[in-house]
């Protein structure tokens, strides 16, 4: 589903590569944690998979598409098959929960009838039934992240990319969010989650890809993450 073959990434105006010769293959339906200290290249991996950045060398294959050969014009259609969630939620403050989720469908031209059905269905799935009329600032951080997850999966993507989705949340809420992602994964969506939160990784015991300075130093099934000294 997601394959990195000898992928290196050097950002413009930067001398140190953010990723060096990364080889990772994520199968359909897998749940993978990408872990590593700050600056190790986790977000870079996800940005490459979303085609927000292009690899400097090597090939990135996502959902059967070689992203280096994907023209800018085809990027929007490609992204419709991928959900993304971030540490900062990225909700629209002026829109209600319903509207935030519906927005993702409206801008890709989904018919109103489908939107009317999908939005409440998805909000219920993430545990926000009855909160559709609230504005983001009337929700807790955990609830806001659920809205963001609902928005990411409302179009039923094959892949869900999460960049530190629990980075702004306290440990108990973080676990709830990861369990929600786990549930989404069990329904068939491939999930890749970048984090440096050892507790959630250890609780879930899934595949762990560990990065250090842009290099994959460990790739293990059913694994734990022992954060290095100084990291939480």
């Amino acid at each position, binding site marked *: 589903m997601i394959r990195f073959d000898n992928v290196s990434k050097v950002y413009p105006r930067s001398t140190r590569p953010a990723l060096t010769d990364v080889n990772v293959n994520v199968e359909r339906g897998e749940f993978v944690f990408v872990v590593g200290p700050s600056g190790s290249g986790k977000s870079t991996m996800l940005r490459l998979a979303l085609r927000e950045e292009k690899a400097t060398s090597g090939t990135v294959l996502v959902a059967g598409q070689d992203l280096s050969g994907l023209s*800018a014009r085809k*990027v*929007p259609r490609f*992204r419709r098959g991928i959900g993304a969630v971030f540490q900062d939620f990225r909700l629209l403050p002026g829109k209600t929960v319903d509207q935030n989720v519906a927005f993702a469908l*409206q*801008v*890709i031209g989904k018919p*109103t009838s489908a939107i009317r059905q999908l939005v409440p269905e998805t909000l219920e799935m993430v545990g926000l039934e009855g909160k559709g009329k609230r504005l983001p600032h009337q929700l807790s951080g955990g609830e806001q992240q659920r809205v963001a997850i609902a928005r990411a999966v409302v179009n039923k993507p094959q892949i869900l990319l999460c960049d530190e989705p629990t980075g702004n949340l306290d440990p108990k809420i973080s676990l709830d969010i990861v369990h929600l992602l786990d549930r989404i994964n069990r329904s068939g969506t491939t999930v890749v989650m970048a984090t440096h939160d050892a507790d959630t990784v250890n609780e879930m015991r899934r595949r762990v890809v560990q990065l250090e300075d842009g290099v994959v130093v460990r790739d293990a099934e059913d694994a734990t993450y022992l954060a290095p000294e100084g990291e939480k």
Partner: protein
Amino acid sequence: MKAGFIAGEVWSGLRRNLSMALSVILVTMVSMFLLGMGLLAQRQADTMKGYWYDRIQVSIYLCTDTSLQPNCQGQAATEAQQESIENQLKAMPEVKEVFHESEAEAFARFKEQFRNSPITGNVQQGDIPQSFRVQLSDPTKYAVVTSQFERAPGVASVQDQEKVLKRFFQIINWITVFSVFLAGLMVVCAALLMATTIRQAAFIRRREIGIMRLVGASNWTIRMPFIIEMLVVATLGVGLAVGMLWLGLRLIFNLGFNQVVLNKALIGANDVWALTPWLFGGVIVIAVLTSVVTLRRYLRV
């Protein structure tokens, strides 16, 4: 995308950026008003030219005993001279028609024109010279007539209305050039202001744009609210400009000049309507182009 959804986005966008929207409306209005004025002045000149050229005449005044022109040598034109001039005129291909106005007719016309003025008392028949009124088939060829008859025996002077009109048309031409030039500057201002407005609107909506790109909205979907916003604002501006042109025309011509028997020589509302689609078309092109060019930076994937 659903029309209702786009309308909502456009409305909220305009509300969030109201002062900029207003300034684009005003600048568009002023620029299109100036442009319209210039083009209308030109149309007015053309209309008048057609009107006058149908009526323009070259007048050849013949000598009287009191003529001071050196060509007359103090003598009135003779019967023979008069006939020779008339025959020559009729033989010229440039000449469409020739009227002869006798001294008696000239005096009668003078009296009629100045009937309310005391000066008529001092003027007698014979003071106003007889003349030939020449209508040309091509009014611009008056120089041919002038040069041929200026020194002809018995001719006191050749007067040509074209000279007077030329000045008048030149003034109109300058008005046109000046207002079209100003309008050009204003159109540049309008385009720059639109670009600034769009940039600001895009900045205000950078979150929305970011999310649209994330979930895979097409570039046209992302552009659409901005383009429609600019179209709404620019169209309002042109609409106001057209309204002002129409109103201005009515005020100047219908109230100011309606005594003059020149109705056929004046432009009217029809000319404003003829201009309207071009003004709208031009502004729409400018608005769309400016939006697309300005938004390029925000749409880079």
